[in-house]
C-alpha cells in the first residue's frame, strides 16, 4: 500500500497541490480536533485552554520518544527499546550521582559530580542504541526482535542496579533541578521546552535536510537506496543512536523530576510511542509519515484516554480504547489513501 502511495505521489506531484503525507497529516489533525470537540460535549469542563495545553504537556515524554521512533519507522525499522532506556538512563544518573558511603547498598552511589553523572548515563543509553544498530545493521536480525531484547536488557540492568526497587536517597541538591525548572518566567517546565525544541528540530531535519529525505528513501525502497549509493547502514545506525539519546535524556529528566531512579519507569512507553506514530499516519512498512502527524497522533491518544477518565470509566478501559483507536486509524488511513490514489 505504501509503495503504491509513494509512486502515486511522485507521479502526481506536479498535478496535485498536496502530497499524500500532507493529506494524511491533515486528516489526523482534523480527527484530533473533531475528537476534542466531541469529548467536550460529553465530558464536563473538557473544553478549556488549560486542558488543551495539558493534553500536550502531560505527554512530553512519550512525544519526545515518538520522534526517534517515528524516524526509525520511516526508515523501515522498529525501536521498542526506548522504554527500557528511559529506565536505564534514569537509574544510572541516580546511581552515579549518589554520594558514596550511604547507610545501605541502595543509598550508596559513585559520588560523581552531577554533570559527569548525566553524561555517563547518556553514554549508557547510547550503548544500548549502538547495540540495536549492531544487531539490526550488521547482523541483519529483524529490528522488532532485537529491540525487544535490548528493551529487556536495559530494564534488566536498571533492575540490577536498583535491586528491583528504586534509589532515591543521598542525592545532591542539584539533582532535582533539571526536571522541575521553569523556563522564561512562565510555568513551562524544562522537559516541555525540551520536547518543543526537539519537535522543531525534527520537523526541520525531516523537511529541509538531505538526511531527512534520505530516511524516506531508505524506508520506501531499501534496495534502490543501496544501489544509488546511499550508505544505508550508517544512516540507520545514526537513527538508532539519536533515538536512544532522546530516550536517555527523557530518562534523566524524569529521574530528576521525581528525584528517584525507578527501574519500572517508562514501562509500556515504547508501545505508546509506537501507537502515537501509527495513529499519526507513520507507515510501519517505512517510507511514509511525518513528525507533525505523530504529534497529532499523540493528541488523539491523550484525548481518548483523558476523556475516558473524565467520563469516569474505569482506567482499565484505556487498553480497549487504545486498541480501537489504532485499529480505526490504520483502516481509515489505508482506505483514504487508496481512495485518493485510485
Amino acid at each position, binding site marked *: 500500500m505504501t509503495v503504491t502511495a509513494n509512486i502515486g505521489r511522485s507521479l502526481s506531484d506536479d498535478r496535485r497541490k498536496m502530497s499524500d503525507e500532507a493529506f494524511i497529516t491533515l486528516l489526523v489533525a482534523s480527527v484530533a480536533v473533531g475528537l476534542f470537540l466531541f469529548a467536550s460535549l460529553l465530558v464536563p469542563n473538557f473544553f478549556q485552554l488549560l486542558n488543551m495545553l495539558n493534553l500536550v504537556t502531560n505527554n512530553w515524554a512519550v512525544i519526545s520518544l515518538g520522534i526517534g521512533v517515528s524516524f526509525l519507522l520511516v526508515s523501515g525499522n522498529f525501536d521498542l527499546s526506548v522504554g527500557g532506556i528511559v529506565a536505564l538512563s534514569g537509574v544510572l544518573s541516580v546511581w552515579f550521582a549518589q554520594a558514596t558511603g550511604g547507610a545501605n547498598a541502595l543509598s550508596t552511589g559513585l559520588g560523581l559530580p552531577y554533570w559527569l553523572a548525566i553524561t555517563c548515563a547518556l553514554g549508557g543509553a547510547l550503548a544500548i542504541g549502538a547495540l540495536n544498530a549492531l544487531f539490526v545493521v550488521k547482523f541483519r536480525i529483524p529490528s522488532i526482535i532485537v529491540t525487544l*531484547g535490548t528493551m529487556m536488557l536495559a530494564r534488566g540492568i536498571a533492575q540490577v542496579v536498583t535491586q528491583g526497587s528504586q534509589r532515591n536517597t543521598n542525592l545532591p541538591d542539584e539533582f532535582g533541578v533539571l526536571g522541575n525548572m521553569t523556563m522564561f518566567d512562565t510555568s513551562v517546565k524544562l522537559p516541555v521546552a525540551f520536547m518543543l525544541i526537539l519537535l522543531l528540530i525534527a520537523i526541520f531535519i525531516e523537511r529541509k535536510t538531505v538526511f531527512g529525505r534520505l530516511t524516506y528513501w531508505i524506508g520506501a525502497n531499501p534496495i534502490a537506496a543501496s544501489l544509488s549509493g546511499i550508505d544505508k547502514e550508517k544512516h540507520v545506525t545514526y537513527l538508532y543512536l539519536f533515538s536512544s539519546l532522546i530516550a536517555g535524556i527523557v530518562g534523566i529528566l524524569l529521574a530528576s523530576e521525581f528525584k528517584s531512579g525507578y527501574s519500572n519507569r517508562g514501562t509500556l512507553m515504547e508501545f505508546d510511542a509506537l501507537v502515537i506514530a501509527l495513529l499519526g499516519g507513520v507507515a510501519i512498512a517505512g517510507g511514509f509519515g511525518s513528525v507533525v502527524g505523530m504529534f497529532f497522533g499523540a493528541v488523539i491518544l491523550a484525548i481518548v484516554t483523558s476523556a475516558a477518565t473524565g467520563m469516569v470509566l474505569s482506567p482499565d478501559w484505556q487498553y480497549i480504547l487504545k486498541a480501537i483507536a489504532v*485499529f480505526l486509524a490504520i483502516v481509515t488511513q489505508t482506505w483514504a489513501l487508496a481512495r485518493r490514489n485510485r
Partner: protein
Amino acid sequence: MAQSSDISQTSLSGGHQVAQFLKNYYIYFVLVGVVVLLSVANLDRYDLFERGNFLYDKNIINILRISAPLLTLAGAFTLLMVSGYIDLSVGSAMSLSAVIYAMLAINGVPFLPAFALTVLAGVGMGLINGFLVVRLKITPVIATLITLSLFKGIALLLVQDGVSAIKSGGGLKMPVWFNSYGREAVWLGLPMAFWIAVVVTIALVVAQNRSLLGKYAAATGGNPTAAKLSGINTSKVVIWLYVLVGVSAALAGIARSSFMSLGDPLSGDGMELSAILVVLIGGTAFSGGEGRVLRSFIGALIIMALTIGMLTLVPAYYQTLVIGAALLAAAASNHLVSRKETAS
C-alpha cells in the same frame, strides 16, 4: 522437511555432517549443559539429589508444573513463526483465557464445559488475529499489538474494580477441583496441564512432519509468492495457524489459572517475549520457512530451568537481564549459523 534434510545429510561431506548434526541436536546439549551447571553450582551446600539442589525430584516436578503454559505455547508459536508471521497478543490471550476460565468455574460451571468454553474463546481470539492479518491486511506486528491491548483491556474489565484477580471472596468460592488440573499428580508426579502440553506438542510434531499444514506453513514462510503460485491457499494456512496459537494460549491460560488458583488479568504479561525467545533458542529462522516444534519445546524447558533454577543462585531481580541477554544471544547465534550456511 525431515526427509529432505536426511537426504542432504547423506550426500554431504564429513565436516558438513558434523555441522548438520550440531544444528539438529545442539539444543539437547544446551539443555544438559544448563542442568549440569545448575546442579553443580549448589554442590558445596547440598548433595546432588538433596532437597535444595536443582535435581531434587520435587524441584524438577515443580519446575515442570510451572512450565506447563510456556510448553503448551511453544509448538503452535513455532509453526506460526515458521510461516513468517508473529503473534504479540499471546500473553494477553493467555490472561483473558485465565480470567474467563476462572469466572466460569467460580460461577459454578463444571470442569469440562468451562474448559471447552475457554478453548472456544481461544479459537475466537485466533480468528480475530487471523481476520485482521489476512482479510484486512494489517501488518502482523500491528494487528497483534492491537489485539494485545484489546484482550488485556477485556480481561481487566471482566475483573471487578477494586480486586486484582478473580478469586474466592464476596460470596463466591473457587470450586475444590479448580487447581487439580495444574497441580494434582496424574502420572509420574506431574499434573494434567503438563501432559496436555506434551500431547499438544506431539500432535504438532506429527502435524509438522506428516501433514499438509506443516508443509504449507514452511512453504508460506520460505517463499510466500511461490507458495501461492503453486496453489497453496496461504490465507487459510495463516488463519489456521493463528487459531492454533489462540487455542494454545487458551490452554496455557487454563494451566496458569489452575496452578495459581485465580484468574489474574496480568498473568500472561511478557509471555509473548518468552515465546519468541523459546522459538529463537530452538533455532527457528525469523525470516520464516524453517524451524522445528520439538526444538522449541526443549528451548522452553531450558528457559524455565534457567529462570527458576537461577533463583537459588542470584536474586530475582536478575531475571529480566538474563532473559534479555539470552534473547540477544539466541538471535546472534541464529544469525551466525544461517550466515555460515549461505556462505558454504
